[in-house]
């Protein structure tokens, strides 16, 4: 079983996976009643007609959470290989990994100090 064959399996799986939910939806599409009217197909908000756009103003806090998440997620690019090879490293391996994590934790504490983690 070589590497590419494994991924062929995953690829086929990924192609087939959406079919499973699509099948019942397709069956439902055949059987379901279809009686749309203007009121039924309008946006379901609070009974009153929708005013204005969906583009309400969002708070910057969402972006800041996304940002911190992005940084920690990207960090995994290096941390996962580091963890995989960890058992075969010397003490220096630990020191390097520690420095790496420490620098990033710094940024987290900066955000904490600046009250950027607060959901106001």
């Amino acid at each position, binding site marked *: 079983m070589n590497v590419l064959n494994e991924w062929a399996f995953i690829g086929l799986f990924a192609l087939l996976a959406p079919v499973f939910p699509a099948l019942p939806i397709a069956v439902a599409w055949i059987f379901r009643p279809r009686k749309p009217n203007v009121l039924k197909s309008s946006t379901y908000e609070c009974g009153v007609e929708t005013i204005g756009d*969906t583009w309400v103003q969002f708070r910057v806090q*969402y972006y800041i959470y996304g940002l911190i998440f992005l940084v*920690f997620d990207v960090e995994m690019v290096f941390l996962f290989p580091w963890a995989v090879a960890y058992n075969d490293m010397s003490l220096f391996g630990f020191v390097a990994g*520690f420095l790496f994590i420490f620098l990033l934790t710094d940024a987290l504490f900066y955000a*904490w100090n600046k009250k950027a983690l607060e959901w106001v």
Partner: protein
Amino acid sequence: MEICTGLCALMVESGANSGLAQFMSLLIGVLLVSGVPLVTVIILIWVERKIAARIQDRIGPNRVGPWGLMQTFADMVKLILKEDITPTAADRVLYNASPLVSFASVVLLWAVIPFTPFHFGVDLEIAALFFVAVASFGTLSVMVAGWASNNKYALLGAFRVVALLVSYEVPLVFALLIPVMLAGSMSLVDIANAQSGMWFVVLSPLAFLIFYISSQAETGRAPFDLIEAESELVAGFNIEYSGMKFGMFFAAEFLHVFTNGILMALLFFGGWKGPFYYESPLIAFFWLGLKGSIIYLTTLWIRNTVPRLRIDQIMAFNWKFLVPLSIGNVVLISALLKVMQELQLSPRNFVGASVPEMLPTTIVLFLSNLAIIIYIMGMLRKRGEEMRVSSQQTRRAFVQASGSAAGD
């Protein structure tokens, strides 16, 4: 997977085209493996409803079939016969694609789950990372669903869900780093095999707890389900969905919870390891299923008993507590492990290590984790007390103020 290879050989022998035979055997393998989650989800829906009912002192589904076992099929018929409304303002393509992606991303996770040491879809070298990467499609589908509905509440709900999902992914991944580090591999088969001496949950209970809590949040279950809050809000990002498409979001959530249970059994509880697991693959499969189910049942228990948290509490709990704790745990475990290895007290490779070989490592790691847990519990208790006292004072002041106002 040997089934596939064997089948392939058989087909080639009987004179079939080798490329076609390979493709057919792959296809059969895919259908076999993907059958497991699809069958499971049908049972899960019944289990979840029954248990929720029992906890709430109800009987639950009991009409269709024995013990209501056929309830799921009745539900499916109902969902099929429901009218499926697509709002006129919605973005049609994305609106319809989103439930498909949501369910497919969870089913796809099962491609890498090993059922026994030798029966699995594929044993990827990067399976752990694959899990996190594929789960991110689920996050994206939530976002797309919320936006494509073109509804203010759906969009707001989707944003809150996504903010929560991405926040809790950070401690989840850091906790995932610990089994990967201890086993020295990202393959789930290797990780389970490396626990022959000692389960990783004993080596680092803290990592398991963090993983457990954040996967509870990742699946949007109570106490982290404010974003959906079925009984109070009108539902979150899936407000505009109806009929089978809504059912798909629901089924995906149920399946995801169980998948997480199986994953935790593999990462922390030795997977299929148990008495006599090497005798027969069925026994190995039984152990994995048992462990996964127990973890799954505890999540149901929590879901039905713990009250919801406010969104600011959820976020503060994650960023100010779980994330620093999980990072600290990684640093602590890696430091102790390296010291033990340098002192020759710990094996460099846990695969096949016996219990006595693992003992010093286990004791040191377990005690250090335990110390941290006790310390944190004390800290939390103190903090909780402070909050309780201050809230009581506020209430008393309020009562006094309103009482004097009434007296006037």
